[in-house]
């Protein structure tokens, strides 16, 4: 497909695209590729520093950190990606619709968004636990809902400006329906900030997921999750600094590749940018 051919030529995008695919590959095959059993507790190796046996060292219960990071990739990547998509979908549809319709529909939607933003994510999470139960879908909905307002506001903002453009009025004059307008005229203009915002929310989602695990939401022990591992590493930052390296590196790789791929996608979608280079 032409998009792929043009995308591959952007060296950075291709390189980090490969890393992102690798990450999703790891996420899919996590159970089988861990060097050691991520759940095996061995109290003689509490906080064992990185060694040949444990490349990234061992945690408070002597479990192999590398294996736990790999297994955690499955959990974290799945939850954050799903939550991100959920946030984008709800956010963009509500934002575009509100921005386009205008009038009381818009102000009602925006005030509802304000309400959503007012409640701290912890409150949202507790309510979701009661409604959807402590399942993974619960986590995804809670995380996604907390990030949706950002997308709603961006989508609405851009829709308001684009709606005024002449070519939109021209399209209407040509008999285009609202769906057509939103899809063909408004979405291309929104895609840039939305893609950037989507890749920006990934790290926030990972860290929020760990905040939710305090509330018994989603991932129950002993399954590992990056945010949770980061939190546990916080308490031993000085006594066992190696604890934080694994999950932090994984998070950085995931976010860096997602953002740079986002950049590359944005560039290929928007050829005018190429001229700039």
């Amino acid at each position, binding site marked *: 497909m032409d998009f792929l051919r043009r995308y591959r030529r952007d060296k950075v995008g291709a390189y980090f695209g490969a890393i992102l695919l690798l990450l999703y590959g790891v996420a899919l095959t996590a159970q089988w590729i861990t060097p050691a059993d991520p*759940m095996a*507790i061995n*109290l003689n190796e*509490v906080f064992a520093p990185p060694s040949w046996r444990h490349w990234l060292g061992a945690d*408070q*219960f*002597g479990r192999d950190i590398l294996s736990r990071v790999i297994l955690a990739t499955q959990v974290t990547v799945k939850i954050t990606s799903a939550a991100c998509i959920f946030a984008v979908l709800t956010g963009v549809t509500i934002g575009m619709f509100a921005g386009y319709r205008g009038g009381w529909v818009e102000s009602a939607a925006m005030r509802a968004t304000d309400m959503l933003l007012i409640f701290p994510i912890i409150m949202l999470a*507790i309510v979701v*636990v009661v409604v959807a139960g*402590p399942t993974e879908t619960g986590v995804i909905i809670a995380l996604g809902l907390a990030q949706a307002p950002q997308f709603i506001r961006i989508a609405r903002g851009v829709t308001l400006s684009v709606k005024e453009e002449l070519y939109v009025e021209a399209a209407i004059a040509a008999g285009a329906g609202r769906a057509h307008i939103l899809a063909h005229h408004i979405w291309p203009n929104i895609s840039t900030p939305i893609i950037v915002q989507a890749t920006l929310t990934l790290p926030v989602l990972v860290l929020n997921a760990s905040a939710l*695990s*305090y*509330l*018994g939401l989603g991932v*129950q*022990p*002993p399954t590992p999750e990056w945010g949770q591992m980061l939190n546990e590493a*916080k*308490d*031993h*930052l*000085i*006594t*066992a600094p190696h604890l934080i390296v694994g999950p932090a590196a994984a998070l950085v790789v995931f976010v860096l590749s997602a953002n740079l791929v986002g950049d590359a996608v944005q560039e290929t979608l928007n050829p005018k940018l190429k001229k700039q280079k």
Partner: protein
Amino acid sequence: MNSSRIASAGAAALLSCALAASAQAQDAKPQYGGELIYAQAGEQFSLFPGRNLDSGAQDVWLYACENLVEMNEDSAIVPWLAKSWTVSPDKKVFTFQLQEGVKFHDGTPFNAEAVAFVFNEAKAKTFIYATILEGFESAKAASEYSVTFHFTSPFAALLPNLAYQKGKPYLDSVKIITVTDPAVRASLLEKGEIDRTVNLNDFDIPRLEANRSIRVRVVPSTRQYYVVLNHMVHPLDHVNVRKAFNYAIDKAGIVKSVFAGRGAVLSKAPTVSEGVYGFTDMRNPGEDTIFPYNLARAKELMKNAGYEDRNKDGFVEDIRGNKLSLNLFTRRGGTKGDFQVAQLMQNFLKDIGVEVKITVLESAAFGDAIKLGPTEAKYDLALLSWGIPTADPDEPMMLFTLTRAWKPVGANRMFYSSDEIDRLSMLAHSETDEAKRKEYVKQWMAELLRDAPVIYLPTLALNLGSRNYLHDDRILSVDNYPAPFAWLDKEEMKKQGIRR
């Protein structure tokens, strides 16, 4: 909000605010002046003593107010503002002789009127702890300096008579700040922005001890971890299974990995720990703790309770072949290390083939889940801890193991019932003869070891970090850190570059 627990020292400690008036010359070395900055962990506390149960609050009281009687390091009741006291033969009337010449901060004289007022007011306004004084009816001022307390039912009170220290405090003022993050408390202590703090992260203690200008004291507390075994759930009603669960747990491993080897101590007796009255070491000779870690014994006990791994899937099944799978409810951040201990439980019980699923609940939801009665309770196992602020076994005996105390009435979440335990508890409750009462408590503990209603786990230790220029402050096993007669060595402070 760390777990709240019943406050103040039970029947014997009565509450009033006063400053000892007469000053006694101390030896030359301690010096007057300076401000002590104390960092505390609790978030929610109120200065009004009657209103809050949080341990943080109690620390605050100890600076501003003094009790009629106090508790010293080895948990003996020590006279303080009351010189002495007597008990009526029927143990329903207690008379306290008060110190003369003591004044409140604002100068009004401290006398029997004041004491009576405080307690009648507490009962009228239903202050939280007032209801703990079971059977307290009223307090009257018999004379200027003697006050009598009238109870509807006999209430054992232990009142040895020891010498006491009195005098004017050395510090000008005490500044108390709340720092919730243990790592930040440690760094504040290292930097010298605070002089004294508690609840340090166990793993930070070696680093702090290495620092010349810091002194860390670690003292076993009266709070012991335990896992509730819901006797309504088969096979937890089977004593061999309960004992197997006890033997399957590597308590030393827990102390080492979760509490860095020093944040907790191996329990020497069920529920009652060293600081509590009536404690005796119940360990068999040569064993480091009660139910020492013995995987083989545990598997053997499970075997003769009819549980074996018949289909070799790593988990045991009963004779009819269904797998033994239990759920374990726990909180996270409620008590130090609770989330970590729960994960180790899951791992140790897996070693004897018992599958455990952990359900982490947010503190309020957890509170709801463990307050239900025998028919509604959904937990098979629940990780909790039992602290004894009164340092008297009466509380656990009356509320923890008594049949009458089944949830939702008391705190018997195991729905455990044993006539022998009930008999011993009632006897100990009203026995005033010391020797007899200690014997009943000993038999009660022996019975608990024989019946193993819960899985017994290590006892938490308390820690107190302070700069070495601070002297004569104290740490009590009931999670109190009084420092009424502490003083600051100014030269040492200057040497360490502490400018305030």
